[in-house]
């Protein structure tokens, strides 16, 4: 953006937000150029709204100047959803962090989007309630980011994703109009379900200024099990058997030998040593409920299944032991940064989802693929197997042409396998801009329908342009995921 235009735009924003809430300072632009993905893209300006009126003003100014707007909570996206990709305005929502109402009788809370997930649940805990979707990043994410991304995590197998808990959103549309997508009733059949349209829309349809969430009584009792299996597909078969048993675990996680080894080294957690032997795989399972007797009964059934199918089974004996196991599992994505060795994870296969019944066969097929010399690539495999969400953490150095070539081959093969199994390329991390390379292959005409919806609500295409509809291309014009990389990430060009 040229200096004159930037100065004029900044002044317009300062006039409505105050100078303390607007900046084009190069140091801030640099800092806001990062998120938790490997991409780097500084905005032209950062604006920090304090309330809905501020957001309306920001949108109005952006629309008038035809400047792109990107919403940002804690900036923890793994898909370049929270970066300003086109020299636009980044809207940092963390000042809008009020918990407006906790209505236990109505089973709901009304909050601003900048409230941290952890803070909300700390407050709800006092009343014995909680907001269940718990991504691995739950300690440091905002509710606005969760809604924009339709985030979920380990407990989705029982409690679902964010979309299952949103009953109303207040959004500011691209024309400055303020709209509610739902009501304060726990259910509604009036009109289109716009809640579900806006949840996971990644800021492409409007900016969220208020969120009404359904909440649930927090479980009082929990039991945790860890079991080791002779192979990755055996673990998958056991996961399916658990689901067929009629018990819905509150978490059922899967880790391969590489992931387990990383956890052991990084977290000093007591894991069965057999779990990190080559080829082995492990399941972490949690059951929860309101009474010890009910949880015990479910736990016994799970234990019987595990003893029948696993080579080693342990039940966490204390709350601390259980907390340590889950803490290690939570930290896995961060821990994997230790094995990057100069490499980036390929986002296209980082977050796939498949029907749970197909997990054993799909994992077997992919393992066999990776065993072939021409497809051999270091990949840690783990995920939320209970809902079919598997993370393939691949390691590719974008500066090594042969490795990139192999990475692309592996990636495309895995994507083909996932799509043939009626799966999805993004189960919980969102699409953003970083995960659009094969999106058309997955969505088909749905992508066209999405474009028409986008066109209707945001004809000027100012709302987070880049997400969903733009495929990253390198300097030669070739589609590539190795674009706008942060060169000074460990292993990047500069490291």
């Amino acid at each position, binding site marked *: 953006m040229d200096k004159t235009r930037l100065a004029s735009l900044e002044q317009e924003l300062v006039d409505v937000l105050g100078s303390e809430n607007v*900046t084009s300072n*190069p*140091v*801030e632009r*640099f*800092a*806001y150029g*990062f*998120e*938790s993905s490997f991409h780097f893209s500084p905005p032209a300006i*950062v604006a*920090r709204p304090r309330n809905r009126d501020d957001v309306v003003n920001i949108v109005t100014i952006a629309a008038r100047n035809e400047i792109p707007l990107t919403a940002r909570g*804690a*900036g*923890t996206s793994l898909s370049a959803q929270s970066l300003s990709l086109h020299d636009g305005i980044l809207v*940092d929502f*963390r*000042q809008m962090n009020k918990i407006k109402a906790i209505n236990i009788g109505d089973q709901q809370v009304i909050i601003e989007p900048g409230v*941290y997930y*952890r803070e909300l649940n*700390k407050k709800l805990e006092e009343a014995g309630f909680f907001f269940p979707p718990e991504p691995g*990043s739950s*300690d*440091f994410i905002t509710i606005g980011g969760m809604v924009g991304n339709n985030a979920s995590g380990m407990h989705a197998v029982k409690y679902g994703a964010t979309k299952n808990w949103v009953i109303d959103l207040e959004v500011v549309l691209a024309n400055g109009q303020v709209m509610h997508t739902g009501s304060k009733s726990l259910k509604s059949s009036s009109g289109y379900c716009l809640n579900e349209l806006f949840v996971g829309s990644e800021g492409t349809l409007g900016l969220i200024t208020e969120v009404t969430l359904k909440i649930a009584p927090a479980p009082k009792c929990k039991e945790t099990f860890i079991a080791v299996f002779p192979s990755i597909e055996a673990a998958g078969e056991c996961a399916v058997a658990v689901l067929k048993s009629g018990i819905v675990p509150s978490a059922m996680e899967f880790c391969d030998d590489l992931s387990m080894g990383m956890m052991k080294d*990084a*977290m000093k957690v007591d894991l069965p040593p057999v779990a990190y032997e080559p080829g082995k795989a492990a399941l972490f399972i949690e059951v929860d409920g309101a009474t010890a007797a009910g949880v015990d009964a479910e736990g016994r059934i799970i234990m019987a299944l595990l003893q029948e199918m696993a080579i080693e089974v342990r039940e966490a004996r204390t709350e601390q032991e259980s907390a340590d196991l889950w803490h290690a599992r*939570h*930290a896995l*994505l*961060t*821990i994997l*940064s*230790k094995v990057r060795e100069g490499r980036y994870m390929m986002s296209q296969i980082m977050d796939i989802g498949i029907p749970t019944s197909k997990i054993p066969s799909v994992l077997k097929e992919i393992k066999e693929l990776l065993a072939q010399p021409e497809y051999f690539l270091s990949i840690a495999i783990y995920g939320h197997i209970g809902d079919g969400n598997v993370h393939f953490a691949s390691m590719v150095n974008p500066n090594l042409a042969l490795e990139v070539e192999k990475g692309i081959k592996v990636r495309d093969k895995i994507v083909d396998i996932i799509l043939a199994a009626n799966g999805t390329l993004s189960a919980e991390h969102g699409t953003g801009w970083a995960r659009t390379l094969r999106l058309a292959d997955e969505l088909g005409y749905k992508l066209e329908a999405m474009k028409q919806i986008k066109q209707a609500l945001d004809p000027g295409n100012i709302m987070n342009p880049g997400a969903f509809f733009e495929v990253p291309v390198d300097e030669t014009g070739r589609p590539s995921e190795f674009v706008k990389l*942060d060169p*000074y*990430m*460990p292993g990047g060009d*500069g*490291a």
Partner: protein
Amino acid sequence: MVLCSLCSNCSATCCSFKAFGWESYTPRARVAMTRYRLAGVFTNDAAYADRMYDCTMCKECDVNCSAGFSPWELFRSARIDLWSSGNALPALKPVNDNIIESSNVFGFNNDARGSWAEALDDVLVNDGKNLLFAGCIPAFKNGGALKKLARLYHAMDKPLTIIPGGEELCCGLPALDSGNVDLFNELMGKNIQKILEMKPERIVFACPSCYAFVNEYYGKENEDFSRIPLVFYTDDLLEGITAGQLALKGFDEQTRVTYHDPCHLGRFAKLWDSPREIIKQVPNASYVELMNCKEHTACCGSGGQLMIVSPSANNKVADKRIGEVRERNVTMLVNTCFTCQNTLEGAAFRVDSGDLEVVHILDLFED
């Protein structure tokens, strides 16, 4: 630094970010800046120094890091680099000059360090069994409290010995926080030498910061020193209560009381039980825990020399902490650290018009 994946787990609770509100004040951004600076790409020395020193060094980022990386160590190294290259913030020079000239942070005549102990011959001894390391702030600013501490120790039949005259020096933390590692090492060496000369059986600390940093560094520097037990005074006072040697004042009516863990005591030294146990034994006290406590305590805002570098940010952090206290609907906040006490007392007047009583834990004891 290689371990940091910029996940941002360190950022949400960072008190510096809470005070300034902009992304560049998060630990994540500081790590990124450092990477780019080392690569010669981030060349704004002034901004780099500003962000590195606008931090309370409270270490919560370390506690939250899933990768086992220590942002705190990185920031410490960055400050040392900034100091040695002459790029440290000018605001830090006076406190370092004071220490160089007078061996205390205030620039006072260090011979007066022990003046609080005058007329305490009846309760102090010279046997060195319980050697008090008073610390600059208690010794020069809170002499009354130290007198009371000395009397309480006498009542417990553990009379204190003080380091005579001006021979107790600053523990060195303000120098280390500035990045002036040479000055820190010099102070540490002199303090170790003097303390070893006195052959103490144990060392009692009145200041959480001195306690945490002597604990962390001095023993590693000198093996003989590492064998001396280091004690924070609340552990002894709790024993004194249990043994019936000390009495607590108590409240006339039921009072909701909470406790603020100082970063250096709660997070660094992981000492959090004895202050709580003392408060819980105060007659008519209903103990209420703060949301952010123990290892996850929130800084009062004074750490890392932020109180010197940016008093307004110091105040913002303190105000936020008082905000957290108010949310618990308590009428009294208890401190074990004199710096936290002063800072939070000021914040209570700004945020709460003084309705919240902010007291030091020694005030809970009968004289």
